[in-house]
């Protein structure tokens, strides 16, 4: 029984990693109705910026804030420069641009920072630790929940958040009521990149920083986001935790490590077949 408990706790810790990137995916989806496959690589790149700042002697929280700000600007710039020209292209063409971004960021990071793993510091005091969850894992989960709360408030209660949702859901009507849709998209990119940067800085101390840090996590985050409901930040976090725990339990007690991912994916797809909008996603009704 103890073993089960430990696997669940470890699963929650890993699930927190998935949840944090899933939040960024939900964020960009809210703003653009697209899933950005380069989201993980953008987060990885921002984490390298943080790493460079820390190496230059900048204190942790200053580096943290600077990195979030950098990521925000970086996200806005990518939208303005890279995504804007393909605004009216077919969806799959945009997906290919995402893939292009992904490989560019991955390769450039390897080129600049090399592929050897780097340790990344944790800001959390040792007192936070509980048995089988390190202080950082507890802290990272807490940060993820804080980001979640902020996003919730932002999208629910601020005019800007509402305008962003409107712009994504119905660009034409939004334009008619005076929302600057183009800037809303750019802002959405900026915010998603900022959330991603937080995710990166929370993930790096656990998995170590390297250019491929996020590429493995992307699938889990994607699955988590859909499982929770792609337009629900709370769902994304819950989805991430569920995926983390599910995978651990399957690996340790049911199917073995070799096929745990396969079985987890089959189960997730199964849930989505029965409940296509995930746990908390709003049901999509399309007019004929």
């Amino acid at each position, binding site marked *: 029984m*103890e*073993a089960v408990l*430990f*696997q669940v706790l*470890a*699963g929650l*810790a*890993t699930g927190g*990693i*998935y949840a944090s990137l899933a939040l960024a995916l939900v964020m960009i989806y809210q703003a653009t109705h697209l899933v950005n496959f380069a989201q993980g690589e953008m987060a990885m790149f921002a984490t390298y910026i943080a790493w460079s700042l820390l190496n230059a002697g900048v204190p942790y929280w200053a580096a943290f804030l600077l990195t979030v700000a950098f990521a925000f600007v970086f996200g806005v710039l990518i939208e303005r420069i890279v995504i804007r020209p393909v605004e009216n292209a077919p969806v799959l063409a945009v997906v290919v641009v995402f893939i292009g971004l992904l*490989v560019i960021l991955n*390769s450039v990071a*390897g*080129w600049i920072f*090399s*592929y*050897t*793993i*780097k*340790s990344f510091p944790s800001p959390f005091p040792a007192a936070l630790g509980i048995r*089988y969850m*390190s202080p950082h894992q507890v802290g990272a989960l807490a940060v993820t929940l804080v980001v979640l709360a902020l996003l919730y408030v932002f999208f629910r209660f601020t005019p800007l958040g509402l305008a962003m949702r409107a712009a994504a859901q119905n660009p034409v009507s939004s334009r008619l009521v005076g929302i600057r849709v183009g800037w809303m998209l750019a802002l959405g990119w900026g915010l998603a990149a900022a959330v991603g940067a937080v995710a990166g800085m929370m*993930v790096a101390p*656990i*998995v*170590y920083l*390297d*250019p*491929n840090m996020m*590429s*493995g*996590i992307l*699938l*889990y985050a994607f699955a988590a986001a859909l499982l929770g409901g792609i337009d629900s930040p709370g769902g994304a976090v819950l989805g991430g935790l569920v995926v983390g725990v599910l*995978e*651990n339990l399957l*690996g*340790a007690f049911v199917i073995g*490590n*070799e096929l745990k*991912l396969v079985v987890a994916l089959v189960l997730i797809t199964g849930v989505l077949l029965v409940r296509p909008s995930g746990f908390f996603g709003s049901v999509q009704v399309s007019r004929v």
Partner: protein
Amino acid sequence: MKRKLLPVAAVLAAALAFPALAQKKYDPGASDTEIKIGNTNPYSGPASAYGAIGKAINAYFRMVNERGGINGRKVNFISYDDGYSPPKTVEMVRKLVEQDEVLLLFQSLGTPSNTAIQKYMNAKKVPQLFVATGATKWNDAKSFPWTMGWQPNYQTEARIYARHILQTKPNAKIAVLYQNDDYGKDYLKGFKDGLGPQHQKMIVAEASYEVSEPTVDSQILQLKSSGADVFFNITTPKFAAQAIRAAYDTGWKPTHYLNNVSNSVGSVLKPAGLEKAVGIITSAYVKDPTDKRWANDPAMKTWREFMAKYNPDGDLSDPFNVYGYSVAATLEQVLKQCGDTLTRDNVMKQAASLKRFRIDTLLPGIAISTGPNDYAPIEAMQLERFNGHEFELFGEVISNEQ
């Protein structure tokens, strides 16, 4: 009579021998001025960490060329990206052999990639020399006379640990973490062979992981709960660091054996936390660029100068840069021995007649020896234990050499 004949015989012998020496013999890829060497490496994709080896080799041959080349010939090192995808390796190697017409293929990287081209290289009779993988199948001189490994193979290394466990802890309960691919399984096989028939009893838990997994925390918990008191860690650097940290943080204190692949102080143990790595046993054959032991070692000083001058973008804490340097030095020696007979046949012949050749970036006491039936250049390693600051060698150089 006897005295008179001698000079005549000498002249005769010289006359007979001289044309053979003077006559230069070339296969495609070699000429009076150039030796073309082919290589494939993953410069892109998820395995691009290994690309550092290709870059280090390239830098080495630039240095060689600046020194005047090998026997007066410049080395033209042609390296292509295969992204660690075997079909791409096949394509690139065919380009090297058929279009670029290289004399030999050197340090092509990856077990699956080399498996994909092994038949082709042997059918074409082009050397597939010093491949960059530790799988055991590259030492098969009989079936594949044109393919040769370089580093100690995974199975030999695993057997060294197995032997050490049997000697020091015959009642050990062993847990194994391994990467689920050819590399991990090769180690596991060698380890089980080394333990002998009692391995079924001794190994109480095995857990595998995929390279796409974010962490191995779950696996460590599984292994810990088996109650094992010995841990054999068959992982690549990122996962090795995670495993060392996780084992320590969860309070598991087994005797920890770490595979050579990940025994870098700077790029594995330091990220894991040096205090968490105390007591780790591993084995080595090259000097670790981040180990303080070698801080004032003349060979490593030369290596650092080489890095600064020819490979300034390279990471000084990356052991792949020492690896690339050392293996390129081995090829330089082989080509030197070839003299003016730069045929593919002679390249293999010379590669198979290295006699206790020393490269000073290898650990003291470790030399490279090959023979017509011995296609395993480095077969010796030495066990070492981490004391919290650096590795301490212990025991003797353990060799598989017959």
